[in-house]
Structures are given as structure tokens and as C-alpha cells.
């Protein structure tokens, strides 16, 4: 009771601060940092559904992100379709591709899955680099429209982007929260703990792994559309590269993979940090900012591998908590009725 009241207070304070932020900091840079943070937080929440809950450590999220960005942009550039419809189309396209790749990979575990996801994302990147229809290596430039909500373009300040990005993050968090508490969420975790055990309990792991990948792909694609409409330019080297995928995994891990809010906390720490080092050290093109970033990743893995969320709540112990083990058979019995 006391912890839930504390959680409510924290949530209210954070929400108030987030709403007030664009009115306090009106400069373009603070807003930019926040928008990028929300975007990566959304991507990390999406990764967490397949990686944190279902145990599929994907290093290919950039492919889903890129497919979303390309689909909505292509539809807008060639047919003038509203990016909001493009967002749905991109999400569906991304989920379809995810199912197509997820099905053959549904037997892969651990390292094999990680490497398969890299291979998949590299195939997608290569293809977009050579695909004339979407501008190949030159990419797509989204023409400036008259602006407004339906066009998903705003030319007077970044505040509208800020609120839309925040809404994306909240929506993905809500979805993630719902998944974690649904029967599906229990199945995901059962599969993560042990394929064999999950199968014995009658959980079709192919079906639920596919569900996790497709949900994750849909959310990632939505973040892609947001990126495209915010930057108004995209090419394979800016949306489909491995470094984006790695950053997403890292954010989720730092925040706490497997928890609902961990990925958002990870983004709140890591993205501003990397944006600030990039701005203060990166302009000379010397690589120092990325050196620091790389060292940071190594240090986090060594000293805080269970993430900040685990540190804050003590929920993510060194071994699997007993609660899901007890909950699993119950969930299955309900399912078999």
C-alpha cells in the first residue's frame, strides 16, 4: 500500500515535470534532447517486450525502425498519404517482415538469435542501399508541407514534436505494462526461462515468440515514422545501421531489461549523456565522444548489468524471482479451460 502510494506520487511528479518542461526550456536544444530521448525510450520499450520479457536478444531493431520510417515517408512522398496512416501501414509492414523473419528464427536461442538478428538487419540495410524505389543510398527527402497535425509536420518550434514523442512513449509503456500483466506476458517469461518447460506446459513458443517480435516491430516502426517526420530526411545509414540497434539494447539493459519502466529510465540517463558528449566533444570528428560511449557500455556491463531499475526496486534479483515460477502453472490452467 505504501509503495503504491509512493509510486503514484513519483508518477505524478514526473508527469507534471514532463508537461511543464517545454514551457520552462524553450530553446531548441533541450527540446531536441528530450525528443530523441523519448524516441529511444520508445525503441527500448519495444525491444524490452521481445528481449526483456521473451528473452530474444535482438540486435536488429534498426531494421524495424527503418522499415517504419521508410514506409510512411514513401507513402507521403509519392502518394501524399498522411504520415499518421503511414505510421499504421509502416507498423503493419514491419510486423509482417518481423513475422517472416521471426518464424524461421523461432528455434534460435541466445547468441544464435542475436547473430541472426544482426544478419537480418544487415540484409535489410543492404537492400535499402540499393533499392531505387526508395532512393537507394541517397535516401528520401520529405518535402515541407504547410504543416499541421494531419501532415505530422510542425514548423513553429519543436514543442508539438515533444508532445507527440511523449505520447508515443506513454502509449508504448501502456502497451508494455498491459503485456507484462496479461497471460501472454506470463507465457513470454515462461519461454524465456525455459523453452522445454514452456512446451511441456503446453505453451506454443513459436506463436508467442512471433507475437513478441511483431508487437516489438510495430512499436519500433512507429518510432521510425516519428523520426522521419521530425528530421524530414532519411537514408539507410541514418536509420538502418547496427549502432542504433546496439544503442537500443544498451538503453534497455542499463535501465533494467524485463521491467516495464526500466527501458525509459535507461533512455533518460543514456541519451542526454550521449547527446551532451556528442555536442561538447564530437564536433571535431575525432571519435572521442564515441570512445567515452564505448567505455561506458563496458563499465555498465561489468558493474551494473542488472540495470538501474533493479537497483531502485531490488525486484530483479541475481536469480529468477520465485513469483513467476509459481504463477506459471496457474496461468496455464486458466488457459486450458
Amino acid at each position: 500500500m505504501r509503495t503504491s502510494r509512493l509510486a503514484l506520487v513519483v508518477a505524478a511528479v514526473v508527469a507534471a515535470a514532463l508537461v511543464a518542461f517545454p514551457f520552462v526550456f524553450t530553446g531548441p536544444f533541450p527540446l531536441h534532447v528530450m525528443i530523441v530521448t523519448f524516441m529511444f525510450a520508445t525503441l527500448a520499450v519495444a525491444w524490452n517486450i521481445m528481449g526483456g520479457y521473451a528473452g530474444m536478444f535482438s540486435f536488429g531493431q534498426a531494421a524495424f525502425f527503418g522499415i517504419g520510417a521508410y514506409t510512411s515517408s514513401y507513402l507521403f512522398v509519392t502518394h501524399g498519404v498522411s504520415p499518421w496512416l503511414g505510421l499504421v501501414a509502416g507498423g503493419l509492414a514491419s510486423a509482417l517482415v518481423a513475422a517472416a523473419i521471426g518464424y524461421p528464427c523461432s528455434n534460435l536461442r541466445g547468441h544464435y538469435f542475436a547473430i541472426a538478428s544482426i544478419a537480418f538487419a544487415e540484409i535489410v540495410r543492404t537492400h535499402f542501399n540499393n533499392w531505387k524505389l526508395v532512393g537507394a543510398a541517397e535516401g528520401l527527402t520529405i518535402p515541407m508541407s504547410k504543416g499541421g497535425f494531419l501532415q505530422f509536420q510542425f514548423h513553429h518550434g519543436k514543442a508539438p514534436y515533444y508532445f507527440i514523442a511523449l505520447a508515443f512513449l506513454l502509449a508504448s509503456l501502456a502497451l508494455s505494462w498491459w503485456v507484462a500483466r496479461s497471460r501472454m506476458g506470463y507465457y513470454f517469461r515462461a519461454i524465456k526461462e525455459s523453452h522445454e518447460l514452456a512446451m511441456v506446459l503446453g505453451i506454443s513458443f513459436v506463436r508467442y515468440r512471433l507475437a513478441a517480435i511483431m508487437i516489438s516491430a510495430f512499436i519500433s516502426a512507429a518510432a521510425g515514422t516519428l523520426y522521419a517526420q521530425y528530421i524530414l530526411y532519411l537514408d539507410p545509414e541514418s536509420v538502418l545501421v547496427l549502432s542504433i540497434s546496439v544503442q537500443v539494447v544498451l538503453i534497455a539493459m542499463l535501465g533494467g531489461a524485463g521491467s516495464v519502466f526500466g527501458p525509459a529510465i535507461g533512455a533518460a540517463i543514456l541519451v542526454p549523456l550521449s547527446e551532451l558528449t556528442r555536442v561538447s566533444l564530437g564536433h571535431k570528428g575525432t571519435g572521442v565522444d564515441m570512445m567515452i560511449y564505448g567505455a561506458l557500455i563496458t563499465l555498465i556491463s561489468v558493474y551494473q548489468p542488472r540495470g538501474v531499475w533493479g537497483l531502485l526496486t531490488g525486484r530483479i534479483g541475481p536469480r529468477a524471482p520465485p513469483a513467476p515460477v509459481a504463477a506459471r502453472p496457474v496461468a496455464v490452467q486458466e488457459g486450458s479451460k
Partner: protein
Amino acid sequence: MSEQLVQQVVNGLLIGCVYSLIAIGLTLIWGVMNIVNFAHGDFLMLAMFVSFWLYTLVGLDPLLSIPFCALLLFVLGLLIYRFAVSKVMRGPMLAQLVVTFGVSIFLANTAVMLWTPDYRLIDRTLLSGTWQLGTVQVSVAKLVSSVGSVVVSGALLLFLRRTRTGKAILATEMNRDSALLMGVNTDRVNALSFAIGSALVGVAGGFLSMYYYIYPQVGGLFGTISFVVVALGGFGSITGAFIAGILVGLVQTLGGYFFDPAYKYAIVFLLYLLTVWIRPQGLLGW
């Protein structure tokens, strides 16, 4: 037409042997300690730069700097193992996956800071020139690299199978607990395997520096290919990595020849995805 095809097959075999050597280093590390070294390609890049600077500053031919590359990478491997990898061995799986990504980003960008992102090439070596064998042209440097890679791979197999230390490594790979019970110091075996795996990629980097472009991001491509080679061969299987390396070399050049050179690496990755669909443990994995 068929002459070109023969040429492509030869090219595929030549690069495939080098892929094999790179991948054997990676698979040794994976087999023994269940860690994928995502910095493997960056180790290769460092070895290439060692060779480049020995050539530029001291005038040492790349062929002769190979022992130095191997030695330096051996030491680097020991350091990375001690200060990063060994610390996450008992940690969560995700940390084990990510830790070497951090090392990779760090090393590649250290190279950018020290030597700029420029492309470099060692233009005149002892092994410059080509041989004409019938209709097929073979660059001497590539031929020596491939033969050298096969010889070094063979030497590693001999070391693993014939020496006490090698047998200890193989025993740890098969069953860590049993090896521990038989008196094998598995922590030292880990360190040694990581160092040997790094030294092998050091040798490969020395070979590649004779004819390939040298730049800070060169590790990305070779790294990704070597993960695919290792997974294709079956993680931890040295023979599997050797066969898969040559296979990948052939698929890459023939895929580029029959389809589109721009897609040659994509075809390799596609082959990998198809293989693990049918055989999730790789060709020779178990």
C-alpha cells in the same frame, strides 16, 4: 565466361581461407567460455594498423610484422579478458553479449581519434604482383595469405590435440566442471583461449594488411562475417568454422558474380539465415 567463373571460385577460396582463420579465433573463445567477442573485427583492425605503422615508420614488410601483430594481440586479448570479459562471466547473459560491443565501439573510435577515419593501403610489399596460371590470375599476397591461414589453422589444431595445454582447452570446451575436477585451472584456460583467439585474428590482420584497405571501421564488415561463419559452422567447432569460412568465401564471390556485387554480403547473411532455419546448431555444432 567459364574462365571468369573459375577466377571467381579461386577468389572465393582465397578470401575464404582468411575468413576461416578469423572465425577460428572467434569460435575458440565462444567454445571455451560461451562468450561472443563482438570486438573481434576491431582486433583485426588493430592488427592491420600495427602492420601499417611498422611498415610506414620502420619499413618492416607486412609479412615480417605478422609475429608482432600476433604477440600484441595476444597481450591485448589477455588484458580485455582480465578487465572486462572475466568480470561478466557470472553475470546475466545480456551483459555478456553487450560487454564486448562496448570494447568494439571503444577500439574503433580510439583508432579514429589516433589515426583519422582515412583509408590507407600498404602499396609495395615483398609479395606484390600476380601470377598467371592459365587463364586465372592470382595475386601473390592473397595466395600467401590463404596458404598461411590454412597453415596457422592447422598448427592450432595440432596444438589443441597434441599438447597438454591444448588438451586442457579442449577438455574445458567439452565440459567445464569435469575439467575442473581433473585439475584443469579453467580460469587460466579462459584467459589463454581468449589470448590465443586474439592472436589468431592478429595473424589474419597481418595477412590482410598486405592487400586490403586499412581503416578504423574495417572491423565491422569482417567482424559480422566472422560471426556468421562461426554460427554457420556451429559455435565452438573449429573444423566447422574452417569449412564455413571457405563456404562463405565462395558464396560471397559467386553470389556477386551471378546476382549483383552490391548484394554479395547480403547473400552470405541470407545463406546463414537459411542454414540456421534448417539446422539451428550450425553445420557441425551439437
